[in-house]
């Protein structure tokens, strides 16, 4: 028993030092992010969650070289599963996470089984096709499960059989909890941070293990791997499933911090984002994708703060008439860069029925209240008062 535990936690001195430093950096985020203006729980939660997503993606892309363009599908499956766990079973986060990881793993097994028959660009296109198929199905035939473009959210009439077996139904919508303790914003961040540390430790174990070396060898020369007696497909499949489970875990954490799951999490832009995070930080390195995820989420946040008044202030040196033009152009560029179109959200606020956006990723199809009004900086309330009673 002691031997097993020793093996389980055995790691090199260098890995141990990396883990200790990483732990300190993550847990001290509220301190060192404060001067950068990013020390608020919502953003720090995203840092932790997307770091998990990128870590998992890197196990597939960084080690085996298989570039998946459909990893957001697993993120979406994780979110939907977690919200369904909240709705049907309990608001406790542990079953939500377990179900999300298992289901996204099974989903990854199915997609991997078909996609891993091909390599290179053909593999990428297949994963992209499956993810887009999932995205479109979530908006069409799977609406009873996904709630379509309204997004899957909590409801006052949810069965929550486990919770209600022990306590009567409380007024109002419940929040995610851990063993009965409801999270505050900062607590939710620390929960995500602990999950990130566990995910990082597992990734470290994979990187330094013989299994990790086999995955690198697949990237290096798959032919030789076959003629050296390895079933490379099983190795690639395992990496794909582990990676999908990481994405599912990240998806469930997104639902825990905000119990709302929309199909836009499965969209190709979300898949592309994790590719960018990994490449930006350094493919195949352990810490690189984490830094990539933090940088992208940080700058996304900085850019989203660029509103009219901030830009007017910035371009104060430009003559009056010209300044309006410069600010208008600059705003357009900002919104485009973020793939955010504020207009449907504005329409939603005015209670004008919005059109289906058919995958253009409008703000209406996103959880609307997460997106700030570019003019005022205030968040929109969802159309129709948000949660249905």
């Amino acid at each position, binding site marked *: 028993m002691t031997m097993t535990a020793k093996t389980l936690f055995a790691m090199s001195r260098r890995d141990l030092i990396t883990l200790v430093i990483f732990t300190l950096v993550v847990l001290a985020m509220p301190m060192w992010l404060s001067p950068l203006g990013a020390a608020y729980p919502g953003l720090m939660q995203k840092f932790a969650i997307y770091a998990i997503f990128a870590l998992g993606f890197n196990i597939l892309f960084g080690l085996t070289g298989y570039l998946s363009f459909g990893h957001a599908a697993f993120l979406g499956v994780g979110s939907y599963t977690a919200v369904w766990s909240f709705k049907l079973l309990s608001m406790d986060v542990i079953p939500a996470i377990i179900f999300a990881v298992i289901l996204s793993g099974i989903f990854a097994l199915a997609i991997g089984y078909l996609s891993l028959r091909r390599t290179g660009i053909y593999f990428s296109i297949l994963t992209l096709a499956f993810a887009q198929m999932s995205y479109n199905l979530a908006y069409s035939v799977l609406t009873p499960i996904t709630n379509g473009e309204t997004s899957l959210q909590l409801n006052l009439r949810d069965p929550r059989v486990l919770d209600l077996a022990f306590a009567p139904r409380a007024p109002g919508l419940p929040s995610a909890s851990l063993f009965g303790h409801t999270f505050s914003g900062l607590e939710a961040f620390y929960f995500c941070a602990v999950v990130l540390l566990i995910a990082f430790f597992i990734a470290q174990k994979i990187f*330094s293990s013989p299994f990790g070396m086999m995955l690198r060898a697949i990237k290096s020369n798959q032919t030789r791997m*076959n003629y050296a007696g390895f079933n490379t497909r099983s190795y690639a499949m395992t990496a794909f499933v582990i990676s999908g489970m990481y994405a599912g875990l990240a998806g469930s954490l997104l639902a825990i911090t905000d119990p709302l799951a929309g199909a836009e999490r499965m969209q190709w832009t979300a898949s592309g984002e994790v590719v960018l995070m990994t490449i930006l930080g350094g493919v195949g390195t352990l810490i690189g994708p984490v830094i990539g995820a933090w940088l992208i989420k940080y700058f996304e946040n900085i850019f989203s703060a660029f509103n009219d008044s901030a830009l007017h202030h910035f371009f104060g040196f430009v003559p009056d008439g010209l300044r309006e033009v410069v600010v208008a152009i600059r705003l357009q560029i900002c919104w485009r860069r973020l793939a955010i179109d504020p207009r449907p959200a504005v329409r939603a606020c005015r209670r004008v029925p919005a059109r289906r956006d058919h995958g253009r990723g409008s703000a209406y199809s996103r959880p609307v209240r997460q997106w700030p009004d570019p003019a005022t900086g205030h968040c929109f309330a969802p159309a129709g008062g948000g949660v249905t009673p």
Partner: protein
Amino acid sequence: MSQSDANIVLHVADVHKNFGGLHALADIDLQIEEGKTHAIIGPNGAGKSTLLNVIIGRLAPSRGAVVFDGKVLTGKKPHEINQMGVVRVFQTPEIFPELSVLQNVMAPAFAKRDGAFRANIFMPLDAEKTIRDEAEDILNNVGLFERRQSHAGSLSRGDKRRMELAMCLIQHPKLLLLDEPTAGMSRHDTNTTIALLQKIKASGMTKVIIEHDMHVVFSLADRISVLAGGG
């Protein structure tokens, strides 16, 4: 080519291989005795490498079968054939250029020990002492011990070939197929490789060598087959 009285470990039975209208192999019948070194010689384009490709499962024969140790190899996947004990050194070195020399040699040892697949993530690579020691021993034998931490991609062609040989030897194969093992090597490296192969020969490993260099062939071969025009 028949040695009916001997202990036959590999039997290539009436193998044909056609590429469209081209008959790369025609009616090949070859028997390899256990523990012997069998050289196959012939001009370029005679089908020597195609024959090896058929044996290791890279190519499926158009007709005929390959039997190894009483089991039919035809139709099996390359990794299954390797797991049965048939290992090949390629004409153009097939290595893992991004891994270190030591890792290149360690990797095949895991296939030998753990089978075609094992998701072993708990034991760190550095803790695999037995495999590491064996890999270092073999690297010492092929003269690459000093370069064990180098990137395999940075080795010279001759060194890559010796490393590939080490990758095959660590699996202790029942049958070792060598496709021009000394091609591109200097005379000194060739002699070192011959000495190494003679040492392996003493251990009783069965080998099939394809070679143009008659000095190598006569130094190592117990039997010689000539392949010309695919037959």
